[in-house]
């Protein structure tokens, strides 16, 4: 019998799936509760259709710049009189745009006159020839920055702004990968104290392929149920450990756990602080939805490979890119596949078609990416 907190987590995950429109079959929520929530969510989603246009009309009138009309372009004859006052800025609060008053015209003339007087005094003092005499002539000279240092094969730092670090890298042989339609996955998760990962306990037989779980912060207790490997990276030793099935091992920042999707280890947060992890891998099949809506899900997604892998090994790099506003990474070698996610799942870091990452937000962003680079050819991309 699950305790109340577990049940609350399950309901939260179920309701998340409901609002996101992803399958809800995998959640351990009783049928009656699931049906009630499904029905309630459905009937609560009804919205009248015409208010959209009226509100749009009001927005138009509250702006000096006309809004570009989308589907919300108002139709004539549908404006409704608003009786009550509106809190905040509305059309009624905005200055009327139209013919300027005579006082405003006089003020403009006075300002223009003062500007002319100031300019005339400046010219008489400095002389016409001196203005602009310090300007360089000829074509503009490009100022070269310091040469970028390649931190990982594929993505490098173009300037002092963005910082790219390799969290984990390995090379997978053809034998390491399942056949069939492959997908690459990347999740950013925050596991609360007492939390477990994966959140479900029944046997995971959804998919096959290698996955890598890298600890960014905190301590995670891992119990091996099948063969797993732990790469100690936090102390810089890159030591490889192979705990036997049933053995528990505590991993910390910089460490990476490697095992197959089909044989997940049980992860538990036994400490008092959340554990931040990034999880990446390649799999064949489709993961069940509870993975997606884990309570500590911060962002992530999957990308399908278009067709089978090219012959030869594939290098896999898990990287962290810290990008200032407008910052970008260099594109990886042609043919590489990049899948990225940001901490806040607000997608301010976009992956360009060439595989470079670009922060289009106004604040620094930390982004994680998995980079697959075929050592043989051709490309992993369509």
């Amino acid at each position, binding site marked *: 019998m699950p305790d*109340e*907190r577990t049940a*609350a*987590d399950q*309901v*939260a995950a179920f*309701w998340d799936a409901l*609002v996101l429109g*992803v*399958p809800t079959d995998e959640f351990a929520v009783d049928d*009656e509760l699931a*049906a*009630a*929530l499904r*029905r309630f969510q459905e*009937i*609560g*989603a*009804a*919205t009248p*259709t*015409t*208010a*959209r246009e009226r*509100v749009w009309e009001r927005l138009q009138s509250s*702006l000096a*710049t006309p*809004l*570009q009309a*989308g589907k*919300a372009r108002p139709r004539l004859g549908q404006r409704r009189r*608003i009786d*009550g*006052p*509106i809190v*905040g*800025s*509305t059309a009624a609060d905005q200055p009327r745009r139209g013919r300027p008053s005579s006082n405003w015209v006089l003020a403009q003339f006075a300002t223009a006159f003062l500007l002319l007087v100031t300019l005339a005094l400046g010219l008489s003092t400095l002389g016409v020839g001196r203005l602009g005499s310090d300007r360089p002539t000829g074509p503009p000279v490009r100022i070269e920055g310091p040469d970028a240092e390649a931190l990982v094969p594929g993505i490098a730092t173009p300037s002092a702004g963005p910082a790219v670090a390799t969290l984990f890298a390995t090379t997978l042989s053809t*034998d390491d990968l399942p056949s069939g339609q492959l997908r690459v996955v990347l999740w950013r998760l925050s596991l609360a104290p007492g939390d477990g990962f994966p959140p479900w306990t029944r046997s995971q*037989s*959804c998919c096959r392929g*290698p996955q890598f779980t890298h600890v960014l912060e905190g301590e995670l207790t891992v119990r091996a149920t099948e063969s797993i490997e732990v790469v100690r990276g936090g102390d810089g030793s890159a030591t490889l450990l192979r705990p036997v099935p049933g053995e528990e091992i505590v991993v910390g920042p910089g460490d990476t756990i490697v095992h*197959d999707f089909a044989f997940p280890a049980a992860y538990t947060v036994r400490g008092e602080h959340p554990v931040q992890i990034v999880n990446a891998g390649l799999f064949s*099949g489709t993961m*069940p*939805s509870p993975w*997606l*809506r884990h309570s500590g899900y911060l962002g992530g*997604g*999957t990308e399908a490979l278009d067709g089978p892998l090219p012959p030869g090994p594939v290098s896999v790099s898990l990287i962290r890119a810290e990008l200032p506003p407008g910052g970008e990474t260099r594109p990886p070698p042609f043919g590489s596949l990049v899948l990225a996610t940001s901490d*806040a*799942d*607000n*997608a*301010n870091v976009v992956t360009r078609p060439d595989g470079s990452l670009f922060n289009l*937000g*106004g*604040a*620094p*962003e930390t982004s994680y990416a998995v980079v697959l680079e075929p050592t043989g050819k051709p490309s992993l991309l369509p």
Partner: protein
Amino acid sequence: MRGLPQPVIADEEPPRPSLTDALLVARAQRDPAAFAPLYELYFDPVYRYCYHRLGSWEAAEDATSVVFTNVLAALPRYRPGTRSGSFRSWLFAIAHNVVANQLRADRYRRVRPLDEAVAVVDVAPTPEASALAAETSRTVRAVLAELTPDQRQVVELRLAGLTDAEIARVLGRKAGTIRMAQYRAALRIRALLRPSREEDRDA
């Protein structure tokens, strides 16, 4: 990791993180005239949220207008990924505040009969559609009225399509607190909807 057999799987593909918001927000920040797609995307959830909180479509329309006016005014200052969180969280935090202001202004507490409200807002719904809309709205509001204020806030944001992480951010509370309130609300909803489900079966 060698010689792994091919599994047989039949499940839904997980959704990918959407890039839409960030791109649309960036565009609207550069040019307010390009706000239309964001409005298109978020009008319904915001309007619905305002309705569930204020109790009339008319008041919801006014509130929604204020929300989007405020969003337009504040958009240049919005910094994604910072304390504001995602655009959706930020937008609904504004909506939450606007509605709270409206509720404080006592005149908006007046709840109109839902049949009247539906008739006013929809231009030409069929009588059946009006009746159905009024019935479903009445059910939702009756359920919401039975919840505690905390539970109700969470459920109203759920009906607007927010995830529990987003709700926690909008309300400024811990995710665990939100989940517990939500869980108890869910049990209450189940209990409240039970008689009507039996009626449906009888019908």
